[in-house]
């Protein structure tokens, strides 16, 4: 499943842009590949993040993967539900399972992200 109103990264994060705030999560494809998610290592509100650099990690039964920030900016909100119920990502990767909200410092970075069609090609390979 790929939603048409989102942007994507090659490392399976999604980005929903509203004004200068970007909501970040991992895709439904990624949660399915990972399997049962047991723990999220989250950043803190106020942390500065850089495009392409991990801001946290996501741990499933067999593997732990970095979550790479798709954009640069400041963390303005984290989804605290994930700290107690990380499996929310398995159940709703694109909605309730969002991970952080970032106040963009350079909105031109959004142009480098993948459009839905391009992301679809990556996961259908």
């Amino acid at each position: 499943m790929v939603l048409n109103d989102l942007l994507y990264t090659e490392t399976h994060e999604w980005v929903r842009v509203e004004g200068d705030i970007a909501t970040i999560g991992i895709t439904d494809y990624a949660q399915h590949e990972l399997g049962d998610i047991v723990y999220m290592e989250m950043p803190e509100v106020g942390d500065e993040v850089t495009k392409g650099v991990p801001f946290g990690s996501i741990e499933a039964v067999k593997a732990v993967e970095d979550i790479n920030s798709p954009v640069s900016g400041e963390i303005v909100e984290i989804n605290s539900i994930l700290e107690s119920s990380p499996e929310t990502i398995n159940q709703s990767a694109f909605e309730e399972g969002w991970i952080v909200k970032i106040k963009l410092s350079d909105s031109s970075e959004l142009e480098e992200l993948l459009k839905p069609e391009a992301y679809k090609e990556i996961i259908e390979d």
Partner: protein
Amino acid sequence: MNKIGFDFPELPRKTAIFEAEQWYQELLSERLGRPLEPIKISNFGEYNMAVNYLTSVLEEAKAIEKVAIFNIDHMAQIRFKGSDAETLLDRVLPANVASMKIGQCKYTLLLTEQATVMDDLIIMRISDDEFILVINAGHDITDEAKGLIADADYICKYLKDGEEVEVKDISDQLVKIDIQGPLSFKLISKLYGADVLKNRNKPDKNMGFFSFNEFDFEGQRCIISRTGYTNRWGWELYVPVEIGNQEFKRIALEALELGGLVVGLGGRDENRISAGNFGLPLNGSEYDRKHTPVNAPLFGAAIDLEKEDFVGKKALLKDIATGTTKRMVLIISEGIVSGRGIYKTGKRWGTVTSSINSPNVSLEKRSFIGSARKNVNEENGTAAIGLGWVYANPFEVDENGNDVLEKNGEAVRIRVEFYKEDENKNPLGKPVLGYISGDGVTPATAPKALKNIENL
């Protein structure tokens, strides 16, 4: 001699019971009333293998609680037959093959001349002049360009002129299905009759640990051995490929009736680490072509140093004589630590070679980590279990030379930290917390008397 190993396949291979696995996946979705999800697949030994059918966490618990069924058709079976079969295998393998009785299984290693590990395997003595070697997936491929040599071709390099041994990869004739867990006895008795689990030499007794029987089912010759990779009560069944799909379906169906599941390689990985004080090593993780197996947990069982000679003996003795102190340890940690460095008060102790999250770690063992993670501390939570090599024995040693794993009735646990490292092995970032465990995760039931489970 002609090459025995297969050419490197262009695409990962399918096991002979691929069709039955798809059937099982559909059955599972019907029974659980959930949408049909594709089986999660990963390449293992150039075979497309199921990582899990349902979820790894649910499957991991089954070998302990009920019964776990595994499609292990990716492993290969090599038959050595002829008047010099025993001589050849005894010349190469570090186990005492000549002393093996008919009906006996033996765990051993295949070593290089440098005493590093090519493979680990189980050898079965079928008759005076016939043996079957059960080897790891992908060790059936000989491809010089890729630097691969099949176990069979490697062993045959040591064949002498005039010796009579017929070596054949019989994997395409046999399907291997593992049946493990406390209800395995009940399942097999029901499907194949209780007699197939009797001791071949003392029919009023049950089969001994590391023995096997041959039996006929619907006119087909089958083998069942009391062995397995879960370190728990269980069997490995070999059926002719003609009835492979049929038998896998019957076994899977019966397992579901008993509250068990078919378990993928994810669950198998957890199961091999979570039983016993030290878990079971995996070739490619704990064993590799760069290190000797000295001080690995099953070293004594796999290698007979009293033997006059075997491939790698000289190098092995040299390694032991230099006072090799390395140890394999079992670790319990708040999260997955694969490949991380093991540190104690800032000092590097070694490296993690395997790590996977497990639902089988008791709350008491998880709480000892002192983690802030919720999943580690809740009632039905998880923690990661794993294996690693450390440079020196972390345990005290008693006057008999045995590790002190228990003190004042309590298991010895050594707190350590696990760091990611840069290319120069400098620790990076925040550590994951955990400890080296002297008491493992759950007991190894495999060698215990079958009377514990025969009336379940």
